[in-house]
């Protein structure tokens, strides 16, 4: 099952396309990271997936073919929007009541115990909680719905490092315990390194790269060698060339088995290095686009 499948998906605001020609298939059971600079279309894609907005082109289905925004889709997806919106003048207990009332499933005892553990008093108004507590409350409400897919839009952007760590720990615990799939957008690359096993890179409203993190890392090498020889290196498509005075760093599409030119060293790139290299070179999508990944994903689906 794919938690999200899009084909030719596009969203236009006025005359500008916030997202276009987006074709994706995010498999079940992953922590999928949606990465891109501000304005790349991350929120747009998430809003389309959770049914908050309607596509201008193409289509999007969730949880194995349910139309986004349909009752069955809403039932299975819990969305924590950017800045974790809560009713600020309601108490924590009232937020629990409201969320329980608005959903078919709600695990009250889980929510209670979780808030207890976090030290969030039920009588406190949501607006009086700290930023980290508000984020945790929103996340707890989402998880207590026992969703199949947890969608998070920039969940940690506003949090301090400790709150950020605690938040991601809660997500990962739920992931491990319940097998909930997670789709989160972020521009905090370092945070994703530890958690993401599926990566979608968005740039200027287009999907630049999408695939399993392991597969992506295995198909790229980071080469370091003399700057003067950069132009002579032509073995593999170069994603990004970073030149210092003496040494050049090239992220190339290659595997560990590919030969390394003399005078150069090769190593596996980190997810952050990979993402940064692509983001610095938006045109690189043409070299290693979603088309190839889409093919492999499709074959996984049929299997």
């Amino acid at each position, binding site marked *: 099952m794919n938690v999200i499948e899009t084909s030719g998906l596009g969203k236009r605001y006025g005359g500008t396309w916030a997202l276009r020609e987006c074709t994706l298939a995010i498999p079940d059971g992953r922590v999928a990271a949606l990465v891109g600079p501000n304005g790349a279309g991350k929120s747009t894609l998430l809003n389309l997936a959770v049914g908050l907005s309607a596509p201008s082109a193409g289509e999007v289905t969730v949880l194995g073919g349910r139309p986004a925004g349909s009752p069955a889709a809403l039932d299975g997806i819990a969305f924590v929007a950017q800045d974790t919106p809560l*009713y600020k003048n309601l108490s924590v207990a009232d937020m629990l*009541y409201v969320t329980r009332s*608005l*959903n*078919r499933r709600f695990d009250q005892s889980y929510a209670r115990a979780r808030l207890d553990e976090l030290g969030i008093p039920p009588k406190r108004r949501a607006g009086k909680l700290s930023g980290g507590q508000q984020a945790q409350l929103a996340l707890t409400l989402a998880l207590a719905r026992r969703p199949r897919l947890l969608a998070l839009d920039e969940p940690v952007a506003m949090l301090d490092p400790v709150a950020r760590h605690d938040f991601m720990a809660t997500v990962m615990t739920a992931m491990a*315990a*319940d097998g909930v799939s997670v789709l989160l957008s972020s521009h905090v690359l370092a945070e994703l390194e530890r958690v993401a096993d599926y990566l979608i890179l968005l740039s200027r409203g287009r999907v630049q790269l999408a695939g399993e993190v392991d597969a992506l890392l295995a198909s790229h090498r980071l080469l370091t060698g003399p700057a003067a020889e950069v132009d002579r290196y032509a073995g593999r498509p170069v994603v990004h060339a970073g030149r210092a005075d003496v040494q050049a760093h090239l992220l190339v599409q290659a595997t560990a088995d590919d030969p390394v030119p003399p005078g150069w060293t090769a190593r596996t790139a980190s997810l952050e290095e990979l993402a940064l290299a692509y983001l610095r070179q938006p045109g690189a999508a043409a070299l290693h686009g979603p088309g190839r990944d889409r093919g492999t994903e499709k074959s996984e689906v049929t299997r």
Partner: protein
Amino acid sequence: MTALTVPARPEEDDTRLRPVPWRRMAGVTWRQHRYALLGVVTLLGAVAVYLWIAGLQLHRAYAAAIACHPARSPACQDLVNTFNGMGTFLANGSILQALPALIGAFVGAPVLARELETGTYRYAWTQGFGRWRWTLGKLVPLAVAVTAATAAFGALLSWYYQPYLATPGHQALGLSQTSAFNGGLFDLREVAFPAWTLAAFAIGALAGMLIRRVVPAIVATLAVYAGLAVTAGLFLREHYLTPLLTTSLTVPGSAWILSQWWTKGGTTLSQSTIQQVMDPVMQRLLPAVPPDQVHLYKLPTILNAEQYLTQHGYTYWTRYQPGSRFWPFQWIEGGWLLALSALLIAATIWLVRRRAT
């Protein structure tokens, strides 16, 4: 960090998904809008207490004035003057005209505008309840609540204004009187008052959805409401039923007089023309009394003068709505306002459903 785990999700057949029951929205709506609703009840309650106390005095003064015998005695005239001098603050009802607008704007406009302004719609519309059901489940109970509260208040207002409403006895005694169609009072009665509140609420809800900011939505609601109320009062209401035409000089005080004019030999006379004819007749007919008592005789004298003119080839036309049409008019106004409100709420829900964010 945590030992808590999420219990396994029961496997369910999602194709036969039953929606979240409607009744669950009641508690949600109450929790989110209780302060607005309590505000309405407090506002109406405070005004109601005032009306109740003032109304008891008014009714007592009225009862005393009409029970007094003989009617022309100075003691009785004192009682009439007491009644006429009461409740001038509320007598024309214009201050209370603002209530439906305020209630509608302050309860109706924030329902969607606040969600859109603070971003909480992204929470509300992604819950399992579904966004158009959420909107309907909120707007309908709130609409019913404000309508019911103002209907009760309208009944109290009707009771309060009862002594002012024209009866055949009023004029003879010299009591203040007004037609039930009076622009300031018609809106405040049992049917029209809650209907206008409902309309203001519906305007507010739609304005909130369109404008997406609380304060501008409230301002827009008040402006649109005022425009609609003025249009209805000045231009629409008199056409609900075809007005009657009479040449009788004595139209009952309960009637809503739309226009009056003189004709002679089939041509309509201008105001100044008839004044030139009328003035000498008035001078002739007015009895010789001290100047401070002239006002007591003016009204009967005008009637005499008018009778004199009708006997000399003039005809006095009156276009009017009879007092007996009060209730049909209330229901006609209530009916179209209800239809309008239903339409506006339906439009709001339609916008929520199709809205592209």
